[in-house]
């Protein structure tokens, strides 16, 4: 530690202790249950999200059983099938991915990565989780009310979603809307935290351009979510009014099963605009944290700085901004003014450019790297493959005229599962294998991890890649049974059955993962503070798992960017962000 010429450079006082502002838990309850510590909240968010995710996984099995073997399983009828797809989609997109990336990873990583002691509004942060949990419980409750959950599709398009031809019209839709409203309120509380913490609580020396891309991704996604979720909120409130108070925001005059309804004058397209004004940014709300995290995984495990860091940051910001002017590409065949097609096709395809840059920079980071094929790295590679695949099929659907034959077919289902289902989930797994040692102090088992990886990646690819071709064939989505249809050959049914089997296998592989999570908690290899040799601040905490307040007495001071891997002249192949310059310690000093 003694170094003569470092005085000038590191001769700055340690950062404030910040003890005064820090909340201190007093009892077991406030420490582990009603905790205001972002790390506990993060674990609560993650566990809840994964638990409800398991429900969605089971729903997908049931759907695949029905699609692969129509008519064989008599306990699945058309009503239930629609309920399954609706709940599966809603849970996966909002209650799992959004909550996990922002509430889970965001809560854990933001304060640690920017060198803060905690989030800036811990109380609101705690409320955020409990409101989220309430939203999840309300959602689960819809399974048990008369009529069951809504079967309107995750898009909840009116008028269908509030009319009696759709399952769950009685209570399911009402509870679904309530649950969404709760989720948004809860998320806003958390989101304010994530944003203000990044803006205001960064430690000394942590300039924006020294932040890890994970923080950039989560930060930008949170800003987008804060601005986009109100659209879903507005749509949900208005639909609740329509359903409960008889207003006609979205309801034109219509005839339901031969009966004239007393609605009149509403516009179903208005709902679609509101929904997709939220819905498209939502895609990037899930994707941007994944982009950020995967950049850090690749860089760390390839022992090489992320290629083109500046471009990566600009691309994240650019994608975030652009994603607010592409929403109507989900509505090319919705009957809106067709002239909008020109505008939205153009903006949509423009967004492909920054996205492509990100992909190039990931693979160029691998070039001449020192690639450690650890489980997190394998998941990161699988992310690139599935994301490129799904991203490229997005160029089909974004190009307005190509979308016309493909919209509402299995091609769309395959596309969005690949790009915002499989790809982000790959990142979720990679991130869990990567950060589990920090959260628990123990490594996850590598062998089980590899089994989990290969089955999940190859299996999911085998489900969703061929699915595109069913869409090309013309097979529509949201059909519980395609039945006798002239243009569907018998071989398509075989393909469906194959996909179902693959999906079941992939689902079963997740049990390996859950087992690994639980088993490693007590039996895993001791991880130490920085098992991957990573540079970012969360790996430099004095204790592992990080104690309350994260940093002991003094906050870390940051001297460099987050990607000093394999710096020429340095002795180790990484230099932590809080290591002062010109102090390449002699070999073995830090082993």
């Amino acid at each position: 530690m003694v170094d003569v010429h470092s005085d000038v450079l590191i001769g700055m006082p340690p950062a404030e202790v910040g003890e005064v502002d820090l909340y201190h838990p007093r009892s077991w309850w406030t420490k582990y249950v009603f905790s205001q510590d972002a790390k506990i909240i993060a674990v609560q968010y993650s566990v809840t999200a994964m638990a409800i995710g398991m429900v969605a996984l089971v729903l997908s099995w049931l759907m695949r059983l029905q699609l692969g073997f129509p008519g064989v399983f008599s306990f699945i009828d058309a009503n239930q099938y629609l309920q399954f797809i609706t709940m599966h989609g809603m849970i996966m997109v909002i209650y799992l991915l959004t909550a996990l990336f922002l509430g889970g990873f965001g809560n854990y990583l933001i304060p640690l990565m920017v060198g803060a002691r905690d989030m800036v509004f811990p109380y609101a942060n705690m409320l955020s989780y409990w409101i989220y949990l309430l939203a999840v419980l309300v959602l689960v409750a819809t399974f048990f009310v008369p009529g069951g959950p809504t079967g309107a599709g995750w898009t909840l398009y009116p008028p269908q979603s509030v009319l009696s031809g759709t399952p769950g019209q009685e209570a399911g839709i009402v509870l679904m809307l309530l649950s969404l409203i709760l989720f948004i309120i809860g998320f806003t509380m958390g989101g304010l935290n994530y944003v203000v913490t990044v803006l205001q609580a960064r430690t000394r020396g942590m300039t924006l351009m020294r932040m890890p891309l994970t923080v950039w991704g989560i930060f930008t996604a949170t800003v987008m979510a804060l601005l986009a979720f109100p659209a879903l909120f507005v749509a949900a409130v208005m639909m609740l009014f329509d359903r409960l108070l008889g207003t006609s925001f979205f309801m034109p005059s219509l005839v339901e099963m031969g009966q004239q309804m007393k609605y009149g004058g509403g516009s179903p397209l208005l709902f679609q605009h509101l929904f997709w004004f939220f819905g498209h940014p939502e895609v990037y709300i899930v994707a941007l944290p994944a982009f950020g995290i995967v950049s850090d995984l690749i860089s760390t495990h390839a022992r090489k700085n992320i290629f083109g860091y500046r471009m990566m940051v600009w691309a994240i910001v650019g994608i975030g901004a652009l994603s607010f002017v592409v929403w109507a590409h989900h509505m090319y065949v919705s009957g809106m003014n067709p002239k909008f097609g020109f505008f939205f096709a153009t903006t949509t395809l423009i967004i492909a450019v920054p996205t492509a840059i990100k992909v190039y920079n990931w693979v160029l980071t691998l070039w001449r790297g020192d690639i450690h094929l650890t489980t997190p790295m394998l998941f990161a590679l699988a992310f690139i493959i599935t994301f490129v695949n799904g991203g490229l099929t997005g160029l089909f659907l974004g190009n307005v005229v190509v979308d016309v034959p493909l919209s509402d077919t299995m091609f769309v289902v395959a596309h969005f599962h690949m790009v915002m289902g499989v790809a982000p989930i790959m990142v979720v797994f990679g991130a869990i294998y990567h950060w589990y040692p920090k959260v628990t102090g123990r490594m996850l088992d590598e062998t089980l991890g590899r089994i989990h990886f290969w089955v999940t990646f190859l299996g999911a690819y085998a489900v969703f890649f061929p699915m595109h071709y069913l869409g090309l064939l013309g097979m529509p989505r949201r059909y519980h049974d395609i039945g006798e249809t002239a243009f569907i050959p018998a071989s398509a049914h075989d393909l469906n059955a194959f996909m179902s089997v693959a999906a079941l296998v992939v689902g079963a592989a997740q049990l390996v993962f859950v087992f690994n999570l639980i088993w490693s908690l007590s039996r895993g290899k001791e991880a130490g503070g920085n098992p991957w040799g990573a540079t970012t601040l969360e790996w430099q905490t004095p204790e592992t798992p990080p104690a309350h307040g994260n940093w002991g007495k003094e906050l870390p001071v940051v001297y460099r960017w987050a990607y000093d891997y394999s710096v020429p002249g340095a002795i180790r192949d990484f230099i932590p962000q809080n290591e002062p310059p010109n102090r390449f310690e002699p070999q073995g000093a830090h082993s």
Partner: protein
Amino acid sequence: MSAIVLFMAGIAAIAGWWLSQQRLGAKPWLEEGALGEFRGGSASPLPAAKLGLGVFLAVVGSLFALFISAYLMRMESIDWRALPVPRVLWFNTAVLIVSSGALQSAVIAARRDDADRVLLGLLAGAVAAVVFLIGQLLAWQQLNAAGYFLAANPANAFFYLITAVHGLHLLGGLVVLGRTTVRAWRGVATPRLRLSVELCAMYWHFLLLVWLVLLVLLTGWADDFAAICRQLLS
């Protein structure tokens, strides 16, 4: 969706301005060393609560911009029949302005460390806000009595919904304002109250601004503006 796109453009302009101060063009790998050597990039000097409220107001702004977008979009249809604006709305508007002004006077008093004036300002602001809410309920009642029911036509539904959302936001603000007032009443030292008072005032000014925009919209003054927007778009 023109209103929300405009709003987002405004947010983007602010974000862009802020980012332009952050030296996003810097090459961080060349900038090894302590912070002092490089310009910009330090954490915001604003108190977290103020920043937090600022971000929250952006969210609320987005919410209202979306309601307005929906309103404008629905208004384009030929069967749109706007409802008459109850006179009491003008009175309410004046009351809300008074409320906002009272809170501003509390802020000024807090900066001067004048505890009595702070309390006076807070109380006046709270009372005026309550009067505003009662006035809004009165407006609803008058409309209902005149036969303009919620579900009768989309214009009515929008009127009730948007005023209700605005009122609920004010009600939420009243909870916080009430807490601050109680603390002032109990004689908490003014410097310790100053931030809370400033936050309340900021929120009140914002809601006043939103109300004025809504008023312009609901009274139909915005029709001409909307017509222009429509022509621009089509």
